């Protein structure tokens, strides 16, 4: 019974709308997968954070405690904690199971645009409109941040964390990568205000989207331009971008109501997925499967590849 190795299938793009979640929490500012992609978080403009099972479309829990709209959220590696930041300048650490606020970190002088756990969920990094990134210690009871990264000259729009690096995009048009291991700061000038940055999954490249409707793929080590992806529209809003689950495609929101997929290597537009009439505000890509979440208005859409069929038929 020696079957030949199945030929590796070409990557499939999620283009089948599987589910639409009506979040009922105002505009959904951000949608994020948890660490394994089984759940998702939606940040609402009605000060709540909601935890969903996106495939089934069930609401698991609502986390309320923010004083203003929630702008970003992240889950810890063990799914035990969440962190979120919002317009109330606070960074909140949540207990997933109880829904209680564990810690509330205050200190930012402006809206918190982005929050991120480090790999072991011992530090929360939050980027704010006050042009600082603050590293909050979850272990101790210190009310002040461990370190304040105030090199940015304008608001910090995006922060991503790897095991030893902090990647931050700022409105001053620079992508800064703080390498803790080397003790160095690499600042790449892009020019246009940066809306989103992310590491590629292999950790070799950084994807940078900026307000000149361009996504750029930069070599992490040298800062050289590896690819440029255009065609979408991003001139006003802070829109998300990401790489697909196997780094094959570059995905970005667009202000014209579509999600754009580019082939990473060729740079050619692979798919423009129409989502709806409004602006696709946020998106999240499943860490392992071709599954995409998009946020438009007050709802979240879950997309899978065409071949996908719900497991139990119940949907």
């Amino acid at each position, binding site marked *: 019974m020696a079957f030949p190795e199945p030929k590796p299938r070409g990557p499939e793009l999620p283009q089948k709308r599987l589910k639409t979640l009506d979040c009922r929490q105002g505009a959904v500012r951000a949608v994020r997968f948890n660490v394994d992609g089984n759940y998702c978080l939606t940040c609402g403009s009605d000060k709540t954070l909601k935890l969903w099972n996106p495939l089934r479309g069930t609401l698991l829990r609502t986390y309320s405690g923010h004083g203003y709209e929630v702008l970003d959220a992240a889950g810890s590696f063990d799914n035990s904690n969440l962190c979120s930041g919002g317009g109330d300048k606070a960074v909140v650490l949540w207990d997933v*199971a109880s829904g209680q606020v564990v810690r509330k970190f205050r200190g930012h002088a402006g809206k918190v645009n982005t929050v991120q756990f480090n790999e072991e969920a011992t530090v929360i990094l939050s980027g704010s409109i006050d042009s600082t990134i603050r590293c909050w210690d979850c272990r101790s009871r210190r009310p002040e941040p461990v370190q304040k990264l105030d090199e940015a000259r304008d608001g910090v729009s995006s922060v991503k964390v790897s095991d030893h690096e902090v990647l931050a995009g700022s409105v001053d048009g620079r992508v800064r990568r703080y390498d803790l291991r080397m003790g160095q700061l690499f600042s790449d000038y892009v020019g246009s205000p940066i809306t989103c940055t992310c590491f590629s999954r292999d950790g070799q490249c950084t994807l940078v989207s900026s307000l000149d409707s361009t996504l750029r793929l930069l070599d992490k080590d040298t*800062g050289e331009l590896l690819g440029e992806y255009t065609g979408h529209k991003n001139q006003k809003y802070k829109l998300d971008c990401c790489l697909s689950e196997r780094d094959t495609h570059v995905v970005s929101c667009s202000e014209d109501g579509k999600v754009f997929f580019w082939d990473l290597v060729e740079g050619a537009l692979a798919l423009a997925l129409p989502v709806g009439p409004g602006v696709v505000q946020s998106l999240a890509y499943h860490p392992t499967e071709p599954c995409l979440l998009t946020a438009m208005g007050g709802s979240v859409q879950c997309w899978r590849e065409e071949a996908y069929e719900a497991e139990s038929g119940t949907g």
Partner: protein
Amino acid sequence: MAAPDSDSDEDLVSYGTGLELLEEGERPKKPIPLQDQTVRDEKGRYKRFHGAFSGGFSAGYFNTVGSKEGWAPSSFMSSRQNRADKSVFGPEDFMDEEDLSEFGIAPKAIVTTDDFASKTRDRIREKARQLAAATAPIPGATLLDDLITPAKLSVGFELLRKMGWKEGQGIGPRVKRKPRRQKLDPGIKIYGCALPPGGSEGSEDEDDDYLPENVTFAPKDVMPVDFTPKDNVHGLAYKGLDPHQALFGISEEPFNLFSGGPERTSSLLGDIGVNKGRKLGITGQAFGVGALEEEDDDIYATETLSKYDTVLKDEEPGDGLYGWTAPRQYQSQKDSEKDLRYIGKILDGFSLASKSLSSKKIYPPPELPRDYRPVHYFRPVVAATSENSHLLQVLSESAGKPVHDPGTHSRHLLNASKRGELLGETPIQGSATSVLEFLSQKDKERIKEMKQATDLKAAQLKARRLAQNASSSRPQPSSPDVGHSSWHMALSGGTATTRASNFKPFAQDPEKQKRYEEYLINMKQGQKDALERCLDPSMTEWERGRERDEFAQAARLYVSSHSTLSCRFTHAKEEDDSHQVEVPRDQENDVNDKQSAVKMKMFGKLTRDTFEWHPDKLLCKRFNVPDPYPDSTLVGLPRVKRDKYSVFNFLTLPETASLPTTQASSEKVPQPQGPEKSRKPSRWDTSKQEKKEDSISEFLSLARSKVGPKQESSPLVNKEGDHVKESLSNKLVNKGEDSQAEEEGSRPPIDLFKAIFASSSEEKSSSSEDEQGDSEDEQEGPGEADVKSSQEANLVETSAAHTGEPAPQEPVTSILVQKLQIDEREEFGPRLPPVFCPNARQKLEAPQKEAPQKEKHKKNKEKHKTKKEHRRRKEKKKKHRKHKHKGKQKNKKSEKSSSSESTDSSDSQSDEEGTADMSPQELLRRLKRLPLRRQ
């Protein structure tokens, strides 16, 4: 279902166990919080534990006497059919269920009542019954009662009895002889808690007396000695609360070998059957003795040292505590020569002294005089001077001190000059401390005259005015001693002269300055006509009037700024070098060239800045990353101190890493010699020097960092640059020497000028550089053509710094610009044009003249393109006037740098303009030619 991504699955690392999948609609169970984990009884009430040891009970409803319904009365209900029954409440009605249970206060369990109890012991009752029987109508009716004995003993008793056991006996086989009780050896000392004093020894002995041979005895009812090891931390023989005792009131301890008489012999099975009446109470050593309990024996079994023998000797008839009441023979046994006066006990090891101490003689305190007042006053301290030496002498005599020779004893009071006098030296002129000593003889005489006039006038004025002039030390008006009078003036006008020495608004005109100082002194002394007196009589009336106004204004300005401001500010605690600010050492470079690089999509080296960044130690720890700089304490980007007033802080120059000091000093421009050296250092001067070095080093480091692999070219550059600078500065110094020399001496510090001219200078220095540049251009305007005027311009610059020219920074910038020009022109050929400089076009003239040279440069210095470009960008940031200025500077420099023939200004300008022609496209083209790696 999606195809499983084996590779991506491998990448994922999962920690712990995932949450259980919740059923749909199921709510996750909440764990019971700690505060809800309580103990309740069967009715759901909280169990309370009152008295942790006594097992207290909770009373009523939540410790109140109420109930859940409160004090609700039982409602009266009565009808014809249902009459209200009379309710009589017993105690049970107010009791809880627990009280009625087996272990409660009023247990309702069935127990053997007294009616069925054994009658054998109850003598009183028996007697009563006998009496009753005697008096009963039917005598002997109670016999039946006697016959019927209720079974109140337990089965164990019955069994034992069947086996021949009787009450009061021990259990076990009968023994022939009583085992001889081990007597307590009196020699054995007992440490620790003493056993309860027992009186059973005697009874034992009595028992032992009668020992028939053929009789066996039942064993005594004793508790076997407990050999269980002590495994607790209580004291010896400590017994905690005996619940048996507490609950049933049996006060007798089961393990009591010695206590109690025969009638109270404790028994193993004891008096359980004996109803002694329940005595509820708590006894035991842990609780002391209750108020109702008499027995007070040995609760706190204390040990006193007197129980023990301390010496080995024959037993004394007493404990030695007899004292004088001791028996005679005992006393006599003791020390015969014992002093009978001592009646206390003599401690062991001590003996009474044979000799008695001689008693101290006590003197009474002296009697105080009647009018004595207990107040001390200190003698006045008189400084030893020539005037009051006799006074001193008198004082010291009155104080009982030996009189010193004033010449010898006051060695320490002499100062250097006095000592010199004694040694016959001539006073050193340079060591004069007063400004007035600098005055010429003529001036001194004039001052003296005025002084005399002043004193004459002052004599007529109120004495209050002159209070500050110590009348005792005031010189006689006729005194010709100039030094003395000057000393006096310095004393009386001390503050004024010190002020004047600090503040010399008219330093350019020494005569005027002197007049001003006199004016100040006179003002200080309160003379109304001070101004008139000190004015030069040879001056015209108009000049006098003007000077009067100037003096008045200067004095007012200074005084007001000094006194009114000084009361509002305090001195800095720590010395802050005020012209230094902390700035990040590395800053992201100028954006302009990056923008063009981005436009060309030349990401990489051109757009990347790399800095040293120090993460916090804790952050490294949290990230599980070793601290990259384990020895450094700083966090974030390293910071350096920079000149606060440095133009570099405001210009967007490339802030390259500040060079180490060694490097900076090695490339230091040789400082001008001669007058420059003798000059008093002002902070503007130092900053100027620093900036010179700074700019040079910055350019050098920039060149190095940018050149990168082409490092070999930079030493050449440095050398050339240094050479040029050297020659320049030398020339500059030589030319300026003579004219500067005269100005150096009287140059006042700049701060005072700031104080006076604060408003105008602030304005100017903070205004845009264009203005300054323009004004400078105007200054240098006529001197543009020839060497001489350019030197003059330099003089103007340097003297501007000295005399408080409103723009003290200006020389710095100009020198900086000079350096820029030098570097560029000498090493890097023609500059590239500023892209966005509109003024550059206007001066377009004769661009072709320099063209071939430019080409050559281009070929040679291709590798410097990036540097050039960079620098050009930088300069573009400076205003247009810089270019103009640069042209001039270049002129000067070219003339100085032995280019021999006098190139006219249009030449250099054309040079500049020729490069300015270059379009952005050209720039981009050049940039593209750079060997940069592109993907």
